[in-house]
């Protein structure tokens, strides 16, 4: 019944009291070991425990997409999963997309197309778009709109968001 076992050894645990659990994640390529309460969402773990505040808390109910991150390369709402349930997985946030001092092509395209106004939804939009590109299911602008519908932009920058994503999807270089 050791608490540690709850997060590390699936076979042998039941955590009796709501004490802290050890959660190991790889976040943006760095291995992290955190002591978290069971009810800490992945979003709160990223923001409050790893100080990665690029990932935004919008609705906290899986409706707005501001908290979108990639887990093992797939986009999810980080507000709707417990950090302890992501034990051992690789998490990529907006802070992890740039490589060697160069912005990710989606980041460049969002700037080029002015694909934001207030910017609050932007980290989620870009992480979601990175997931969309990896899925390879969208071919047309209509399909991009449909498969990006989990990301709300209250400033209404959708037109430019779609243009930015289409540019990267089609491999257009500026």
């Amino acid at each position, binding site marked *: 019944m050791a608490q540690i076992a*709850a*997060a590390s050894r*699936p*076979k*042998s*645990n*039941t*955590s*009796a*009291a*709501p004490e802290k*659990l050890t959660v190991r994640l790889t976040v943006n390529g760095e291995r992290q070991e955190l002591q978290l*309460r*069971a*009810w800490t*969402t992945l979003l709160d773990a990223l923001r409050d425990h790893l100080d990665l505040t690029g990932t935004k808390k919008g609705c*906290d*109910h*899986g409706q707005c*997409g501001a908290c*979108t991150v990639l887990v093992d390369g*797939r*986009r*999810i*709402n980080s507000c*709707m*999963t*417990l950090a*302890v*349930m992501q034990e051992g997985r690789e998490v990529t946030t907006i802070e992890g997309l740039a490589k060697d001092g160069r912005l990710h092509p989606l980041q460049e395209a969002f700037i080029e197309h002015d694909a934001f106004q207030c910017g609050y939804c932007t980290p989620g939009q870009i992480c*979601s778009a990175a*997931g*969309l590109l990896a*899925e390879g*299911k969208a071919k*047309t602008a*209509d*399909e991009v*709109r*449909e*498969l*990006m*519908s*989990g*990301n709300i932009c209250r400033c209404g920058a959708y037109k430019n968001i779609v243009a930015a994503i289409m540019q990267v999807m089609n491999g257009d270089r500026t």
Partner: protein
Amino acid sequence: MINFAYSRAGDIADAVRWAAGDPRAKFIAGGTNLLDLMKENVERPARLIDITHLPLNTVEEAPGGGLKIGALVPNTDLAYHPLVEQRYPVLGLAILSGASQQLRNMASTGGNLLQRTRCMYFYDTATPCNKREPGAGCSALEGINKQHAILGASEACIATHPSDMCVALAALDATVHVRGPSGERSIAFTDFHRLPGKTPERDTNLGPAEIITAIELPPKGFARHYTYLKLRERLSYAFALVSVAAALEMDGETVREARVALGGVAHKPWRDPSAEALLNGRAATEANFEKAAEMLLRDAKGYGHNDFKIALARQAIVRALTQAARGTPQPVADKKIR
């Protein structure tokens, strides 16, 4: 969020045993609905049993030509699975009509069946709700009930089941495999969810500590003549006002076998064998589709704000059957209804 204890199950027997020993425990898989309800204080489990490590995440051909879908297969993986795309495209279409890609990446097959209604009074703990608190009363009966049921409702509850996937599974005559303290059993999909009656707090016929292990599809997939037509207040990422899964087996211009399931109109995916019987062996004409729609909706009842659903459903059924007969399913990304 509320506080709770957490256990991670390594095998199904453990999960079932732990749940049986702790009536206030709940299983968690994708968590996309349960955690939401916990944040709203609607669900208050004392313990979450994490079942995501159980070996229930494969899609396999079943003996006899069907398909067996593990309860933990994520919605996206199922929708894009080659065997689903080839043989059961109505299922993929229905799945991709619901939620967002982020949520579909998280949500499990079994969890989709067990999601709770999105009735706003169920979510709002400041208002009476018989589903949340039996005997408290139903706020929707005379409240804002635009989203609510027109078929099979009761004085106790007029909530709808929110799933799109389940509408297709009902049309396909799926089977739900479950395991509980007294072993394994199978439940026909149309018997899995319940009508509200006097016990709206019970959404399904799943017993205490029972866990869904798989969904099985029979061989017949209606891959040529099908559609999933979903009508909602936004063009994407919204629950259905009315949805229709239509699947036909055609012999020229004649319907050999018809399946019609409705979403957004009842406490469970709605099927009516008497309406399907009206289509079987008949010509695929608008007049016959209208007769089937009349039969499906013969007991429909509005509660004020949702009166429009009766006419909307009638037209949606006719349109969906027309699309299915033509072999032109409604594409998810195409917002013009063809």
